């Protein structure tokens, strides 16, 4: 009877709105979902709270009877959660550094393994499906070790500016489309770049591997496995993963600019 009364007293879950923040300040029936927006909870929620591309803030009086998940964001605040809290911050540029969970070290390890596994699976598929492209990027990366990280850092800066601009108009279809496209492009560049880094590492250290693992595909896969696992190591891992991302994205962007040189002519045209 009490639970029935409680259920009838709960507000219905707010409809998920794209790009519009969700504020829950009264007892509410979950799930509460936000897309490309933050969720702020200062009351009781019976159900899950999920934010995709946004943070979840649990204020002092917040109590969530369910799981709290932030994909591409963070969960913060002193509020209480009876279920699991998991967040995968950012776009994986910082490796395990962006992964948090409240279920103890075992759950943290689980989330880290899940993330490493996804990258390793996708990377292995790229290596097996497009080995020539991987080699092209790897050769470029190996020959331009200093330029690639600089190009990668600049590319990330431009990407961030574009996303911020797009988020400013995120309530319009154009803004949403720009954000989705920008995220997809970054993830694709990141995947191709990390695989290229693995190719270069495999080429450099392939001689130390047993003979059966020295083949181009195999040694690249082994290097990718090592890189993915290294990203799980506290402190060192995120730094290594970030460096691999910068170098890899730089190689991908540099290769694209070389193949389609039109944008390269614009600066000289502007200075005339």
């Amino acid at each position, binding site marked *: 009877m009490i639970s029935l009364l409680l259920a009838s007293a709960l507000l219905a879950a707010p409809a998920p709105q794209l790009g519009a923040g969700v504020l829950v300040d009264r007892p509410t029936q979950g799930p509460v979902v936000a897309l490309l927006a933050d969720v702020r909870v200062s009351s009781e929620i019976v159900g899950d709270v999920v934010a995709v591309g946004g943070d979840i803030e649990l204020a002092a009086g917040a109590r969530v009877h369910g799981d709290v998940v932030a994909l591409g964001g963070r969960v913060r605040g002193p509020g209480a959660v009876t279920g699991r809290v998991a967040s995968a911050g950012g776009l994986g540029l910082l490796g395990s550094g962006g992964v948090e969970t409240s279920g103890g070290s075992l759950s943290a390890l689980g989330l880290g393994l899940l993330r490493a596994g996804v990258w390793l699976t996708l990377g292995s598929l790229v290596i097996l499906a497009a080995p020539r492209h991987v080699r092209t990027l790897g050769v470029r990366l190996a020959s331009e070790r200093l330029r690639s990280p600089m190009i990668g850092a600049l590319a990330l800066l431009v990407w961030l500016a574009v996303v911020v601009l797009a988020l400013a108009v995120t309530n319009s279809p154009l803004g949403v489309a720009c954000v989705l496209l920008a995220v997809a492009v970054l993830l694709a560049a990141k995947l191709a770049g990390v695989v290229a880094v693995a190719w270069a590492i495999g080429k450099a250290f392939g001689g130390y591997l047993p003979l059966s693992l020295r083949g181009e595909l195999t040694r690249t*896969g082994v290097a990718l496995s090592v890189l993915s696992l290294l990203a799980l190591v506290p402190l060192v891992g995120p730094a290594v993963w970030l460096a691999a991302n910068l170098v890899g994205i730089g190689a991908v962007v540099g290769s694209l600019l070389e193949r389609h040189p039109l944008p390269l002519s614009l600066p000289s045209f502007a200075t005339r």
Partner: protein
Amino acid sequence: MTALPPAPWQKRRFAAWLPLAAGLAFVAAGMLLLGGVPASGTVAQLPAAAGGVLGWIASSALDALTAARGGSDAAKMLVAVGGSWLVVWLALAALGGSWAMVSLVGRARRGAGQ
């Protein structure tokens, strides 16, 4: 050497598929340690929500195209739907596109002149 395709026999070797198997094993182990996907019921609905978002974008674009017949009304609607930022974006795209086009023509001319 780099122009040559990788030897096809490499894909037939068991070792070439080990990293893929390891990746899948990591995913399985991670799921096991996590005890399943957190908020699985809600997360399972996200692909459907993503489909809805794409549909909304497509229908909004179609609406905008339909309204574009109305001359100045279309411009007003553009501002109303996308805000002033959309106009800034369009202006930048137009300027950038023109710039690129002129540059392309200039390159072609220089190429023909040489």
